[in-house]
């Protein structure tokens, strides 16, 4: 274990995340993991890691990190104006840091979350098979909490492959983060909406309320009336859009509750979750219905993009 980075300033909300702990949902523990799995996986692959290694997920603002040892890092996801020693540095590429180099960020220019991966993989507390930070349980990541000033970031071992700075992922094969259309398949309780309600949901613009975080996004826009008896609670997934009795849809995200009994009228497909992960309170969003076949093609397009980095 080698300390490679020193946290001078953690930014607004920086946690250690990986691909989550799906195995733990049978105990009611939220799956967790990176909100934008494409950006998280790309950051790891860009520095020669497996996609399942831990990365830093930084929300709304970036951290200020100082290199203790030479290392290769990659920044992906949102654009928070990354800078090395005060000079603008590119995202979506491997970056070499020499001892003493400072990685910092300017103002947020686009998106909600950046991911920082370090060649060798970030060392973190493992809990129930994952390094992801679970704030509610105060486990995983860095002592189950967001990073704070004075923390250090260590790597476990050498990278799986030689970490080469300068490898990149072209813009053309990244998710289209600027298009805030979320593609979704009809949910198991779509029939609880009227025909008009269904076209209202898929035809309207919604806005992320201030009550939006890693658990889910409450969506301001047309209220949806649902019919029928109370449902028996069932297992939920991230991407599910549930409609509570007040009619305001909620898009469940990575730290969502594992079960619930409100109607799920649509589920955002896996290829659109990275776009959803980069939305902020106040952002407008639309839902477009797709078939499972179209969802499969979209997923494979993103898989192929990541495969160029393997």
């Amino acid at each position: 274990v080698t300390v490679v980075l020193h946290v001078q300033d953690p930014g607004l909300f920086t946690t250690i995340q990986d691909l989550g702990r799906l195995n733990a949902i049978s105990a009611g523990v939220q799956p967790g993991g990176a909100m934008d799995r494409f950006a998280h996986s790309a950051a790891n692959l860009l520095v020669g890691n497996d996609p399942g290694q831990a990365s830093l997920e930084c929300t709304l603002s970036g951290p200020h990190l100082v290199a203790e040892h030479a290392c290769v890092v990659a920044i992906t996801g949102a654009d928070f104006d990354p800078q090395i020693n005060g000079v603008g540095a590119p995202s979506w590429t491997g970056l070499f840091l020499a001892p003493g180099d400072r990685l910092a960020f300017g103002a947020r220019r686009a998106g909600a979350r950046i991911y920082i991966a370090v060649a060798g993989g970030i060392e973190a507390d493992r809990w129930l098979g994952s390094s992801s930070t679970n704030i509610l349980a105060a486990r995983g990541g860095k002592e189950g909490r967001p990073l704070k000033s004075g923390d250090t970031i260590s790597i476990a071992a050498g990278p799986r492959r030689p970490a080469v700075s300068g490898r990149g992922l072209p813009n053309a094969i990244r998710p289209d983060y600027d298009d805030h259309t979320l593609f979704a398949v009809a949910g198991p309780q779509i029939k609880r909406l009227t025909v008009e309600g269904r076209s209202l949901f898929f035809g309207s613009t919604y806005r992320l309320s201030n009550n939006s975080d890693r658990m889910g996004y409450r969506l301001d826009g047309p209220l949806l009336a649902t019919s029928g008896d109370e449902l028996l609670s069932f297992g939920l997934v991230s991407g599910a859009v549930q409609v509570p009795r007040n009619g305001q849809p909620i898009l469940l995200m990575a730290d969502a509750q594992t079960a619930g009994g409100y109607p799920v009228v649509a589920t955002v497909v896996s290829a659109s979750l990275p776009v959803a992960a980069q939305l902020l309170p106040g952002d407008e969003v639309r839902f477009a219905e797709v078939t499972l076949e179209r969802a499969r093609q979209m997923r494979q397009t993103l898989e192929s993009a990541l495969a160029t980095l393997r």
Partner: protein
Amino acid sequence: MPPPRSTPRLRIQPLGDTALLAELGTRLDTALNTRAIALAAALKKRRDVRQAIAGYASVTVHFDPDQATYDSLAAAIRRLAATRPPMAEPGRLHRIPVTYDGQDLDDVAARLQLSRQKVIEIHTSAIYRVFLVGFVPGWAYLGPLAEALELPRRQVPRTLVPAGSVAIAGRQTGIYPLPTPGGWHLIGRTNVKLFLPDSDPPCLFRAGDRVKFFATQA
């Protein structure tokens, strides 16, 4: 008990492109829940299944989209659901001491036109089933609660319910494992820890277990 020959109520639907929901029925029913738990256990053994979680009367299946499609998995579930589930082992019985001094106990008793003592007597007389573990870490939906104690949820949920609170709502009862918001009626409290973050699995109750409450003095 004869094997279930057919499953006319089996309803399978996508939950996005990497999960699906298989509903065995729509009733709060111990037999349906037993079948859901058995189906989830059988599905968990498949290599193309990442996770299978039993609900009250359903199974949510997370699958590996590189190994399975919705259609291939739905067909496999129809085959599995048509076979006789293995004999369910009786779940472990948990004996939970409760101090019945909840903030809502008097209100609950008044609304049900029962004495406090009668509410406690009814709540402690049944052995409840753990239908589902989920929602928040360690939370378990227990039931069925006696009809005599049936009340809708509070109109306005509390923003913070203390951990260990024993509560009722509808035909269900449960224990808040963590301090969280909650809309159920608080009738008592227990010092038994339900969420055990340093154990694996990190919860006391598992789906299919049984729970009995005992009244203790404050």
